[in-house]
């Protein structure tokens, strides 16, 4: 079951670099990260790669394999034929640090700029009460392991560097949706979602959902519902008319 795989790995840093060919041993059941580690231990001791749990739970080893954003630890070598060249590059939306490691600080900056959770007071006996059906929607979004593959694949920032200033990306628009659906959260985030975090930039082409290793329905369950909530507030002609004639609170 052991064979020699042909690997093409991007080596380099911000100054420059390119794809380099390697031949590495592969055993049954191994994932791409195993092969990268073998490469590291035997041929390229300084090959930079970010990883932690190797179980698809921490979201550290994000990269692009044959041009598709994936986790190195959840991509089985068995998915490729033995004579296929497997090309591995860093995520192409973020600045590269070295080899397969990118600078993902864009994501941490966006995370910090989102208005934090603002809870209602506890019940008199010191408990918060929530029904299971009310927490399930936000729970789905909290499965997110922050691998940032959705941020990487989203063409809004992947293909347009400038948009990083005005667009938070699927992961953090989903975070806003999560808070907006959180039974205890007390803040209306619809205005900032549209005006500060660029929800309107999203054209729901669903690549975020396609690459999500957790299988979260980012577009259908978070982004579109959030867009609809924004419409409630901002684009609904009835709301607008209601506000004009003073029947409803001004948006």
């Amino acid at each position, binding site marked *: 079951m052991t064979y020699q795989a042909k690997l093409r790995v991007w080596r380099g840093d911000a100054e420059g670099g390119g794809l380099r060919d390697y031949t590495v041993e592969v055993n049954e059941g191994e994932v791409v990260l195993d092969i990268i580690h073998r490469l590291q231990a035997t041929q390229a001791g300084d090959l930079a790669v970010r990883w932690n749990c190797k179980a698809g739970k921490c979201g550290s080893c994000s990269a692009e394999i044959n041009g598709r954003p994936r986790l190195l630890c959840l991509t089985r070598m068995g998915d490729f034929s033995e004579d296929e060249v497997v090309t591995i590059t860093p995520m192409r939306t973020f600045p590269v640090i070295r080899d397969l490691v990118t*600078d993902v600080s864009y994501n941490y900056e966006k995370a910090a700029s989102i208005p934090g959770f603002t809870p209602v007071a506890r019940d008199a006996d010191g408990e918060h009460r929530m029904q299971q059906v009310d927490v399930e929607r936000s729970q789905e979004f909290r499965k997110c392991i922050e691998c940032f593959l959705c941020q990487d694949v989203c063409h809004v920032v992947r293909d347009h560097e400038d948009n990083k200033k005005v667009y938070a990306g699927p992961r953090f628009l989903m975070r806003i949706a999560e808070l907006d659906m959180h039974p205890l959260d007390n803040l209306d985030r619809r205005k900032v979602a549209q005006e500060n975090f660029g929800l309107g930039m999203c054209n729901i082409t669903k690549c975020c959902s396609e690459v999500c290793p957790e*299988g979260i329905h980012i577009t259908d369950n978070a982004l579109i519902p959030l867009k609809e909530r924004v419409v409630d507030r901002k684009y609904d002609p009835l709301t607008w008319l209601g506000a004009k004639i003073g029947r409803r609170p001004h948006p």
Partner: protein
Amino acid sequence: MADQAVEKHFYDVVVVGAGGAGLRAAIEAHEQGARTAIVCKSLLGKAHTVMAEGGIAASMGNVYAEDNWRVHFRDTMRGGKMLNHWRMAQLHAQEAPDRVRELEDWGALFDRTAAGLISQRDFGGHRFARLAHVGDRTGLELIRTLQQRVVQLGIDVFMECTVTKLLTTDDAMVGAFGYRRESGEFIVWQAPSVILATGGIGKAFKVTSNSWEYSGDGHALALRAGATLVNMEFVQFHPTGMVWPLSVKGLLITESVRGEGGVLKNSEGKRFMFDYIPEFFKAETADNEEEADRWYDDHTNNRRPPELLPRDEVARAINSEVKAGRGSPHGGVFLDIASRRTPEDIKKRLPSMYHQFKELAEVDITKEPMEVGPTCHYVMGGVEVDPDTAAAKIRGLYAAGEVAGGMHGSNRLGGNSLSDLLVFGRRAGASAALYAAEKKATPPEVTDDALAQARQEALAPLERQGGENPYAIHAELQNTMNDLVGIIRTAGELQQALDKVAALKARIANLSVEGKRRYNPGWHLALDLPNMLTVSECVAKAALERQESRGGHTRDDFPKPTPEWGALNLICSSSDGAVSLTRQPLPQMPDELATLFQETT
């Protein structure tokens, strides 16, 4: 020379590690008014806490109203075979419910009971359903909640930085020295208080559920700075790790599988755990399948299934079955939930497990049993701390979470880890902030000599040519610890392990790595290796010394626990790189707590 420059920062409290304990400590220190920084080896939110699956143990009584801290305390002590520091176990049991509740104020969304409260699930060694949980990804929920809180409070986080040395003056902390993994540049945090929250040591073992970060940094840093370690011989092997494919051998399968009804079977299809019920737990464990199966719905009138015995018992049982030739094709046993719960139930309650097996082993756990075997999971031993303040033996040094010792005795119960992080993380944060406030008048000073020396030590492997390969030495160490200091130990093998570790120690003086300082994993490993070797030496030494079997320490040549050893802790200390052991009597439990153990179950 510009290259000599070291980036300097000044804080009141520096927290090393950004898992549950580190984040909770930082939040508390910040709220007490301390200027606080978090330093972590990975990106924020990636720490090993995310791997915790089952839940947070806290006697909130949401499912069984008769639960309270005394029952939890008693379960914890018995699970640790009475070697736990009683005061830590008491504080832990008393404070865990409040620590869980406050997570909800920060946005956590636990699964709910019908009454809308936090749902609690069963786990090994816990008398009542007690684990607050979110499916089987509770650790992720915990770390994300704390991470988002830290971000909301605006606490400074130094991501992807490794601390290589604690700096002391006159036996008091003055700061921590390290490097940025990204650039390889050096950095020093000057602070009177340093909190270690670096987690465990599992990466010294080959088959482990732990990530690369678990290289025993905190244990080794504390030891070198002059603090002491306690209970290092006790390493927990989780009974259910994946055994196949090899690539994921050791990867954890949550205990919730058994909590939700999963059973262990050998190759003959027999539920073998009924043959391994120890005297100590006979009274509270079902001895037949009918009673065991009834228990899932009615805890009050039935005794718990033996699959839910504490982890050390189950791990040993699996080990024995495999040795007796009744193992599964890939050298484990079968964990079967498929025949006991509906596919919908399994997918709903154990989504991550379903996903994990589907993706990594092409096994559908709703249709087939899993193959499982023991995997190195947790170290009970750690920095010896004062229970109330989490203070180590050096002024200004604190430790919380897995890196601290004493709380779990000789064996940790599932679910007690996450609550440990929260309870003692908060305590460490509070006392570190208090101590820093007292030291306000005399800010810590770090000499240029100390910095130059720390720098020199860190750069050595890069400057050397043609020396030893760190990856090769790491592999040798992992094999040694796995084969000779594993679940079942003997004096001969332990001595062999110590010889081997001594030889490796000599070889790492001659490590060399290729490449430069910028994000160089070879260099990073070269700096982590000495830590792994130091803790491995502590584990093997203490294991050789303790001539009995108890909890996570099983000696083939001394198969029974003894009362004499039951009254002793082993303390590791170090001077000039040599580890030495001393025996220390166990702290005495007050009478009002001791009486809890005289009741019949």
